[in-house]
């Protein structure tokens, strides 16, 4: 056993952090709790230390729950907590902000999926991983740096002036992730969905997020605009690569334009 006078400051901090984060000291195991921590009138040294240990776990669990509300609902409290605990054990926070705590969670879920070693994959882990990734991206978009967040456009704004707003983000999923998320936040208590290719757009207007389920053609059109192509060129791109007729696209464009403006996808 090490005498308390022989413990350096770095040793002591490593020891305490090891107990909080891993449940065991990461430094010299000869340092017993009783040799480092005072007991008090009411509590033993171990109980004093356990207040910090319990608080560490509870705080970070609560934070994960806050960052992945829909995922926690989809998995159920017990399973979510188990995944979150494993994640926090593998990837303790390295940031000064809790906002990025869940950054590696989607990749962690992918890496540790229960059917990883099986040839025949189940579909529910794919849903869980997609949902986790989507939720984390929402938190990033919420805080994304962007000038203004305001625009004044009308259906009469000339097409050649239109471009996508910098806070528009396009997603494609193997499951109806966006609809599931929307149903969840509207307290519709959605069931786990069946697989199905879906597309969505997320934007931010007046600093509030907007989520929109869109069609595949709209996704590819907007994607083309996001790459810097004009409205005209994006229509041509869609016609060439997805077997649309340019006349049909021109016919539907006023409706799309009006919807995109109303949804805050476009700016000038």
């Amino acid at each position, binding site marked *: 056993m090490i005498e308390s006078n022989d413990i350096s400051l770095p040793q002591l901090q490593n020891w305490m952090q090891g107990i909080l984060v891993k449940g065991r000291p990461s430094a010299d195991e000869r340092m017993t709790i009783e040799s480092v921590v005072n007991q008090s009138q009411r509590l033993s040294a171990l109980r004093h230390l356990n207040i910090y240990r319990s608080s560490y776990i509870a705080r970070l669990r609560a934070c994960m729950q806050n960052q992945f509300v829909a995922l926690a609902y989809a998995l159920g409290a017990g399973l979510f907590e188990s995944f979150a605990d494993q994640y926090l054990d593998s990837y*303790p926070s390295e940031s000064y*902000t809790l906002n990025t705590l869940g950054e590696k969670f989607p990749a962690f879920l992918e890496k540790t999926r229960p059917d990883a070693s099986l040839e025949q994959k189940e579909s529910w882990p794919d849903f869980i991983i997609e949902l986790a990734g989507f939720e984390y991206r929402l938190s990033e978009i919420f805080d994304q*740096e962007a000038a203004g967040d305001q625009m004044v456009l009308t259906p009469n704004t000339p097409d050649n002036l239109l471009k996508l707003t910098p806070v528009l983000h396009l997603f494609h999923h193997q499951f109806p992730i966006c609809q599931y998320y929307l149903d969840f936040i509207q307290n519709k208590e959605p069931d786990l969905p069946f697989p199905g290719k879906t597309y969505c757009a997320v934007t931010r207007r007046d600093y509030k997020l907007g989520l929109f389920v869109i069609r595949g053609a709209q996704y590819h059109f907007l994607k083309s605009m996001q790459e810097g192509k004009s409205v005209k060129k994006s229509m041509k791109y869609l016609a060439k690569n997805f077997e649309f007729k340019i006349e049909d696209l021109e016919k539907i464009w006023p409706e799309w334009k009006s919807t995109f403006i109303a949804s805050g996808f476009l700016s000038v």
Partner: protein
Amino acid sequence: MIKKRDQYREIINALPNPGLGLGLRSKHFNYILEHNPAVDWFEVISENFMDSGGRPRHILRQVAERYPLVMHGVSLSIGSTDPLNKEYLGKLKSLAAEVKPLWISDHLCWTGVNSLNTHDLLPVLLNEESLKHICSRIRIAQDFMERPLVFENPSTYLTFKQSTIPEWEFLKYMAEETGCGLLLDVNNVFVSAFNNDFDPVNYINQLPHDRIVQMHIAGHQHCGDYIIDTHDRNVVREVWKLFSQAWQLTGGVATLLEWDSNIPEFDVYHAELLKAKQYMNRMTGYDLDADVQNYLDAAVSNPVDFLVNDFKW
């Protein structure tokens, strides 16, 4: 040549007393902007805004135009043996340049080592080695920020066998050596005193009162044989009494009510703050048995919501 420490001390001495303030919480953003409530000032959690390019920063800019602000951080980790995080300090400085706070505070604590962050305010070792280490880091941080910083006594749930200096004395030396200011959290004194068997009245009597620029008051959760600093309920009478004692000793300083979990409607929060006025001019005896506490069965609240983004749809 005037030492920087003395310059910092003079700046601290000249800080104003803006009155009674509240923590700026996302739940109240809309209310504050719509009603302009008669609050003297707001304290903001620095980490909630320093990386934000979205709504929180947008709101903060508007609040800063209407009210005096103080920036209060939880991640400086002044007691850690890791190097100071210059990226963090840089962002703190940028935010301060934008919102022009009256002062910037953090805690006498460490949050992690080896690049990890436990996101807790962990207790520092209170001995000479640690004092030297912390003072040297305060000097670096203050020089980087080009202003004195203010440090708060944390709630603690343990003490180390190696500690040789009482916390109040540690804070006094720290302020003397670096010119920093102090934020006295009277609720933290009460919580730490109960958990670690010391006399809170003596603690407050012994502090260097001329270095105290701000006080915190808050509610806590009594769990029977220990107390957790939950910031989720009304201030108990014993803490008000300590506030009254500290008010007399400091001559009155900026005072803020913290409420970070189970946050009530704005008017309830504000009304609890205004109770402070009743305790400003009282000389009260100290009676530890005064309040009846309900404890044991309640789950411990873990304030975290105020540290993470709250989406608005």
